[in-house]
């Protein structure tokens, strides 16, 4: 008996040891080390960095570029979930219950569902390079080509600091929407059909069907989507780094926190300072997650 239990313990440990250790070594320990490195002047090569206390954090407060990056993240944090969720909800509604009968999708919804998901399948770097071509400022750009043919002067989607941020936001929404359409569709599928039918019998139109029935019953899913998209907005990196001119330009108009961390670490060789920026970003991200879960807490509807 004792032998058996011993064997069972061994069995469990043998399964857990490897993943837990990998997680500790490659996830938890770098996190902890980042807090330590943030308080040193490490430049990436020396084996003995000097401890400098909170100097890096003090310096960070005067770093205009970093605060510019933070405002971009905050803007994304507000706009990206909002726009994405509105569009995705709209599409999901149309695809599932938007049809004439009110309980089926509009015509061709199965095809649309697949098509909407395409952008999600592409790697972010691929999307970034693709959109560089789409946004090209000369006649070979997919957007500027037709504009120029119409005699309009080309728009510097990525080269005009006034426009570049919106181009980045647009690409992020474009890529994210498909996934959330699928997520919301799944949420809708779990709502019993009779609810919609009952509402329709009571004379609800598409509008009130959406706002009175669909949205409240989907609230849990929307909340999850909000947190996911919020975190996506806070740690956006690849799209900005690959797609925009000068990695977050022109003139810092698209830079984000993660880009500044990368720049300071791998281009300026200021690993200590970059870690301090990373710590700040960590605080923002965790703060956001806690806040959003608190704020969006609502009574659950059971059915």
């Amino acid at each position, binding site marked *: 008996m004792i032998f058996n239990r011993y064997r069972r313990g061994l069995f469990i440990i043998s399964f857990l*040891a490897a993943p837990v250790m990998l997680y500790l070594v490659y996830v938890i320990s770098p996190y902890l080390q980042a807090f330590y490195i943030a308080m040193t002047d490490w430049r990436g090569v020396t084996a003995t960095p000097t401890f400098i206390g909170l100097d890096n954090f003090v310096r960070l407060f005067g770093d205009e570029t970093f605060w510019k990056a933070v405002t971009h993240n905050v803007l994304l944090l507000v706009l990206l979930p909002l726009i994405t969720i509105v569009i995705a909800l709209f599409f999901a509604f149309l695809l599932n219950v938007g049809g004439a009968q009110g309980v089926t999708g509009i015509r061709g919804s199965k095809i649309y569902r697949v098509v909407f998901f395409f952008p999600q399948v592409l790697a972010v770097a691929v999307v970034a390079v693709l959109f560089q071509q789409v946004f090209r400022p000369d006649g070979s750009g997919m957007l500027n080509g037709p504009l120029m043919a119409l005699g309009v002067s080309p728009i510097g989607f990525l080269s005009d600091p006034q426009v570049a941020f919106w181009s980045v936001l647009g690409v992020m929404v474009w890529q994210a929407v498909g996934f959330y359409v699928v997520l919301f569709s799944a949420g809708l599928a779990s709502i019993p059909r009779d609810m919609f039918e009952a509402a329709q019998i009571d004379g609800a139109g598409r509008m009130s069907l959406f706002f009175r029935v669909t949205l409240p019953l989907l609230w849990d899913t929307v909340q999850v989507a909000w947190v996911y998209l919020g975190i996506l907005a806070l740690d956006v990196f690849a799209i900005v780094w690959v797609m925009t001119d000068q990695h977050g330009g022109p003139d810092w108009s698209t830079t984000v926190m993660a880009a500044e961390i990368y720049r300071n670490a791998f281009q300026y*060789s200021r690993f200590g300072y970059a870690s301090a920026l990373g710590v700040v970003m960590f605080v923002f991200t965790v703060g956001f997650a806690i806040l959003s879960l608190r704020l969006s807490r609502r009574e659950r509807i059971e059915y």
Partner: protein
Amino acid sequence: MPHTPHISRRELLRGAALVPVAGALAACATPAAPPAATSSSAPVATSAANPLGVPADKPLEVWIFDGGFGQDYATGIHQPLFKSKYPNVEIKHNSTKEITKVLQPRFAGGNPPEVIDNSGANFMDFGALAQDSQLQDLTALLDAPSWDDPNTKVRDTIDQSVIDIGTYDGKFSVLGYVNYIHGIWYSQKAFRDNQWQIPKTWDEFLALCETIKKSGKMAPFTYAGKFPQYLYEPLLTMAAKIGGNEVLVNIDNLEDGAWTAEPMKTAATAWAEVGAKYLMQGTTGLDHIQTQTAQNKYRVAMLPSGSWLENEQKSTTPADFEYGMFPIPDVTGSDKLPYGTLHTQPGENFIVSAKSPNPQAGMEYLRAMLSKKAAGDFSELVRTLTVVKGASEGRKNSPGVESASKAITEAGANVVYYRWNNWYGPLKDEGVAATGELMAGRLSPDKYLERMQKKADEIKNDSSIKKYQRS
């Protein structure tokens, strides 16, 4: 059935998990303590044939940045030459496009390779390496006899600017191998066909731009709009031409008001005018390859670049294109430096790691690279001049190399350079961002220079950034 697990928590912790975790943690992100010194083997005696004391059979590891020049020059030219003298030294050749990502961990781990071509967009910060004494002092190499002639020191076979620029903390430790010559590049064929003349003064330059613009055949001027560092280059060279070399020395030394000096104002105003009137449409959104390819297609007449251009564009250049370059024209009539003044800058920077197992062989490898044969073959292969004096003489050079080589002979001692962009990364990025805004007309020349001055002052007052000086 009791639920007390038979293995106690203590046992578990003491067991398999903790020991390897602790070991692995120490080796992860934070730097490891350097391993005990391994250079216990006695140094090899130096001789006339082996002036740097290369051990006959210790391996040599070489890392080449696989960029515009590729890596064939290393495996096809430099390494065979080295091997011819040291057949028993095994050369471990490697190449990468990401020098920092691949090699920075090797430095942090205490086992760097011997020879590194620390180039490309992601090169390792020289200042950081120097600060941690990772760079081998190459003075011994300078004082060694050259590969070709035992009576000439290596020091006398290369340009003085290489030694100035490669010196960190008083020690020559970075060897720029290629001599980049900056100027305004054009197609000799296009200029001949249209009877356009090389402008000698800025007024002639503007008049030429006007002529080209009116001809409707092509746009007068462009630059790599996505990378405005291509444009601050002629701007700074022009300022140095107007106000003398000290303009650039002051900027490098972060002197008060260096950016807002009068010559800088004149130069910024001049280029802002080009930006407003003569740029090819869409310039600000195009990169260097796109603008250079537009030039190859005769859609634009001139662009600022360096002597790597011809090699970079070899696949899109028409056979009769005939690259040529001219220096910054006279601006004020009372410029401090004469016509023909050039900005040259050694590039493709090679270093030897001080803490590598075999630094002597690393230095010997550089000595082989600096032989006339190696340098001349290199120039022919990659169509770019090296810092080795006279290595390209009597060889079959391409039109661009020929033109640059002529320009450098005519410039004589009137060559200038700057280093702030390599010394202070944040200042470079500000320069890139602000220059783009200047050329797009969103920043006035005065505001542009004020902004640069502000950033320079910020860096000057930041105690965490190591400062450099030059004269």
